[in-house]
């Protein structure tokens, strides 16, 4: 029972990260059919914003020193700004381009962000202590769960709830959902396209920033690569969930998190290094079974 509970928390906390990433990608995909491969680099960028640029091995903590009530808004704003900036400078110029072109443009943008960070901070991963008091374990029904896991899950639930409230209760949210489903029709109803897209980018950037903060707290590491593995799984989750479907993205994110943890638990030692092969094998099976994803929106059109 204790072990089971622990596994459940492991799965939920890993799934949380994937779910947050998947929504960030699904939001953008929904409004402009862009698979934003720079999303992972937004995560890295936000994390590096905690530090002062320096190529020394030891990190010089910068924004990371601020109290949480300042730090969190600043990092969220960093993510939002970077994300909106990339829309204004780059993606806006690709409104009518085909998805492959946009995707490669996003990849090129990510490349630029990554190498800029590399130049400013050197390639050596840096270490930073952010809120390590959160690392203490708490007792839940005899299981000792790291507080951070609990917090990660709670924060994810809160973010999801806030997002749902925003989408369901506000005018902007309504417009965004409409735009995600049928962009042209929404515009013909007077929905301001650029504003909605910009807002989607802002939210997506903030989601990237929150993933970054969770990752740093969890790992204590600031690394160029840290966004990309989350981004990759999140991207897959978005497709499995049904592109453009936000609930689908969330469920698929948790699903992949769950499968990864489960595989790690049940696979015998010799096979365990092959874990990801099983996870990705499962991805293929799901795709063959449901090519439009688990929760394809009714109007889903294949455009890529």
């Amino acid at each position, binding site marked *: 029972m204790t072990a089971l509970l622990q596994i459940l928390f492991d799965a939920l906390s890993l799934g949380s*990260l994937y779910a947050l990433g998947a929504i960030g990608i699904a939001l953008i995909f929904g409004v402009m059919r862009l698979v934003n491969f720079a999303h992972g680099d937004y995560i890295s960028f936000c994390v590096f914003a905690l530090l002062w640029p320096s190529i020394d091995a030891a990190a010089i903590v910068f924004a990371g020193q601020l109290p949480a009530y300042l730090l969190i808004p600043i990092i969220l704003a960093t993510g939002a700004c970077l994300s909106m900036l990339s829309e204004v400078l780059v993606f806006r110029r690709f409104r009518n381009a085909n998805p492959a072109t946009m995707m490669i443009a996003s990849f090129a943008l990510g490349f630029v962000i990554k190498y800029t960070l590399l130049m400013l901070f*050197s390639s050596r991963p840096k270490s930073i202590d952010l809120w390590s008091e959160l690392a203490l374990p708490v007792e839940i029904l005899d299981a000792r769960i790291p507080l951070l896991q609990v917090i990660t899950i709670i924060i994810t639930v809160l973010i999801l709830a806030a997002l749902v409230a925003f989408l369901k209760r506000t005018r902007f949210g309504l417009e965004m959902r409409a735009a995600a489903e049928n962009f042209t029709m929404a515009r013909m109803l007077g929905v301001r396209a650029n504003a909605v897209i910009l807002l989607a980018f802002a939210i997506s950037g903030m989601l990237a920033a929150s993933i970054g903060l969770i990752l740093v707290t969890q*790992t204590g590491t600031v690394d160029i690569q840290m966004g990309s593995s989350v981004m990759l799984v999140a991207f897959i989750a978005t497709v499995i969930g049904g592109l453009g479907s936000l609930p689908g993205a969330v469920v698929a994110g948790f699903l992949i998190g769950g499968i990864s943890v489960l595989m790690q638990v049940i696979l015998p030692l010799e096979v365990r290094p092959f874990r990801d092969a099983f996870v990705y094998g499962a991805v293929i099976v799901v795709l063959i079974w449901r090519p439009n994803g688990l929760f394809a929106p009714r109007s889903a059109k294949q455009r890529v």
Partner: protein
Amino acid sequence: MKKLLTGVAGATIMMAALGTSVAKADDIIVGFATASSGFMQAYDKPAQDAAMIRIDEINKAGGLLGKQIKTVAADTKTDRAEGAKAGLEVIDKGASLVVVSCDYDFGSPAALAAEAAGKVSFFLCAESIKAGIQGVGPHSFSASVLAAVQGATMAEWAYNKKKARNFYRLLDTWTEYNKGICDGFDWMMPKLKDAKLVGQDTFKNEDTSIAAQITRIKSLPQQPDAIMLCSMMPGVVSAVKQIRAAGIKSMILNGSGVSGGYWLNATPDLSDFYVPDQGSVYGDDPNPAVNEFNKKYKAATGGDPSSQYVYPGYVMIDVWAKAVERAKTTDADAVVKELEKMKDEKTLFGPRTFTDKIHHQNRGRYLITEIKNGKPGVVDEWTISEPIPVEYLVKK
């Protein structure tokens, strides 16, 4: 389209014209085919700086065979195909010693190019048996000590000095280096009477959470005395943080991949954490000459050595230059012959032995650094009781 084609042609001719340069005849040239950009840069650069310090020392003392040592460099961009080009480029510029990237995987393309050209090549700090005869050829060497020696050292030391009996093995499958540490640990374990492996698991360096692996350790009937953590930056920090956060108090044994204090602010209260080091970067090396070197390094680069991986660069030039002096030529075969005669050759950072079977260290003296309340300090020194057999290393 025509414009496109002419543009391409023009640029190409320009680039070809720029690509050629001349080498002077009466210098000895050391070529660095290392990464000045990309992931490996952070590992190559410090070791290369250390190598430069030794070169400077030699030049100031009158040079090598009466000639000055000149250096040329080409950037591998942390890319294998670029690595091969960089190797060819420094050979083209007349290098008699080709220094290649720290890591075997990234260094080997350049080393293979050097081998094909009949030049001596040295890996800055690669710790795989392949960085040498086995993976490149008879003219290739590594300046560091095998990863397996680190794992074996930690196991034997913890068994003897810390009375550890129950071991747990946690392997990060990301690199060959990590596996090497665990291979050495595996080799040592059966030699330690009544030491027991109570469990083992794997993870991937990029895993953001190793919660499942931790759960497995915690469900053991009794916490292990020591966890052999075969991993490296950056994943290792995350792993350690999570292990300690879960309340696992066992001592953690590591390879030199975690050497250096630069990452410790991520884990402010870390204790019972042990690292093998070839020399101390913390200013408390038992050998004052090492502390002297650290000062020199700081003067030259503006910063303290970040980790022990700075040192092999110095060792490399040191042993190569000695071999050249003894051979009285930079001719590759003669230099290799002299290098292979070295047995426990003293260097600033522990003895070096090369034979015609192995151009690497399958035994070595290590300082043991303990991290206590987040502060590193040298607490001991250990040399494994017997060298790890070449056959065992090759088979792995």
